[in-house]
């Protein structure tokens, strides 16, 4: 086992455990903080995969904006941050079966893929992933249309939120 694999296993286990804690802890603020740990673990997995840009954007967007927003929302809407009801309802076994089936399906699908057991080719020196990403997002042969459509969608969401919150005098 190489050092990278050990590191990946540690990060993966920590991420999974924090993900489990998000849905099992009673205190909503603690759940939000465990979510931060999960998102940070995902960012570290991106970093292991040499996707530094995605890792940093994950931290900026998910921890710096979305998790903070969650914590704000919990603090501003709840008097009691701790949940008192049962954490599972009577359909828990259906959910468990669906989850196990999804995991098994994905596992077998990936297992039959030829690239599953191959080691990744080494990244050539001088390869700039950020440049490649920028080119792909802005060139006409790349993904400029989906990128722009996504921007328009976000703008529409922004305008809608402002309209709803706007206090008509």
């Amino acid at each position, binding site marked *: 086992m190489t*050092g990278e694999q050990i590191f990946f296993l540690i990060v993966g286990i920590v991420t999974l455990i924090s993900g489990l804690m998000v849905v099992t802890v009673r205190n909503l603020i603690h759940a939000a903080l465990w979510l931060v740990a999960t998102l940070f673990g995902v960012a570290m997995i991106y970093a292991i995969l040499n996707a530094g840009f995605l890792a940093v954007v994950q931290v900026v967007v998910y921890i*710096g904006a979305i998790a903070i927003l969650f914590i704000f929302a919990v603090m501003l809407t709840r008097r009691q941050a701790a949940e008192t009801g049962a954490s599972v309802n009577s359909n828990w076994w259906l959910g468990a079966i669906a989850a196990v089936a999804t995991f098994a399906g994905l596992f077998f699908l990936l297992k039959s893929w030829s690239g599953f057991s191959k080691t990744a080719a080494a990244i050539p020196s001088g390869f700039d992933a950020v440049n490649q990403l920028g080119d792909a997002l802005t060139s006409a042969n790349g993904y400029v249309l989906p990128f722009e459509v996504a921007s328009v969608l976000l703008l529409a969401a922004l305008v809608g939120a402002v309209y709803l919150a706007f206090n008509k005098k």
Partner: protein
Amino acid sequence: MNFWNDPLKVAADWLTGIFTGWGMNTVVANVLVAFLGILMLITILMVIDIFLVWIERKVVARFQDRIGPNRLGPFGLIQPFADIIKLMIKEDTTPDHADKFVYNIAPMLSMMSVLILWAVVPLAPVMLGVDLNIGALFIIAAGSIGTLSIIMAGWSSNNKFSVIGAFRQVAVMVSFEVPMLAVLLIPTIFAGSMGINAIIQSQNIWFVWLSPLAAVIFMIAAIAELGRAPFDLAEGESELVSGYNIEYSGMKFGMFYAGELLHAFTFGGFWSIMFFGGYRFFGLELVSPFLAIAIILFKAMVGYWIIMWVKYTVMRIRIDQMLAFNWKFLTPVAFVLVMVTALMNTLLRGAPSWLFITGMLLSNVIVAWVSLEIVRSVSRKERERVEGPKQVVAEAHH
């Protein structure tokens, strides 16, 4: 390759040689040497941090027409050590019903978010932690960990004032991240890379000459990120006592305080890196890496001094003024400036350097002038709206 040209590499090779000589695995030895390097950098930073306390107290004293610490040692230089001893032997209090784990981890996260920034700071052409090709974004990412630490500290203290202080501070930090990110794109456009070392290497002309407005906006956003005056509404003494760190005592408070000072120094450093050439100074940095370190520390000190100058000169603003200033003025100006800079950069690509500099400088001046004119007319209308009825009342009273 001798010690004076590349001290870090020579020292690392020497240590690796010793460790492998003891029969250690090469990988383990490399990890250990890297770890020792990190430890050394952090130690140096913490020692600088101790003296930053002294510098801050001396400078604020001068601004307030006092002498400052002058009893212990020459120029009061021993004072910060006395402060540290005091902080260490103070009672370590935890409020009732505080969330102990979150309460204890928040000061560490706060310090960590500052120290982690130095991973991408090149101290000399050959001395840097990692040359990430996304260095500029990394600054913002570390800032979001700082934001998280503040909200954790405020919430876990089980105190109304600390929560309100944390809300205010987080509102400031989240807001001013936007213009800061936009303005960091301007050195990126000039350098063609987000890597910190690439940005420094491409500053044959300091970027402040190409985009002075961007330098000013970066400084304002940095001061807001630090939560220093005029954006220190999170610690409004008359309303909130001290803000998010109200319940902390001893060294836990010390972590927040030292973290803030080091953060200010670090942002002074980033200001010099982004707009004033970092470790470059007329080729002096090529003479010796030690000279390069002296240059970048000097420039960071100048940036830190400007941050202190602003802090001890201007008054605190209200939260609505802060939000209006950021979202209605600074963010639009930063976005317009990025667009204008990108456009001018494309138009002037093949131009000689004098034309490039003049064009960039002129476009900056025009953007600044137009935005200030718009602000002036808006504020005149606002003043008329606010002061209008007041005069009528005064008239009627007569």
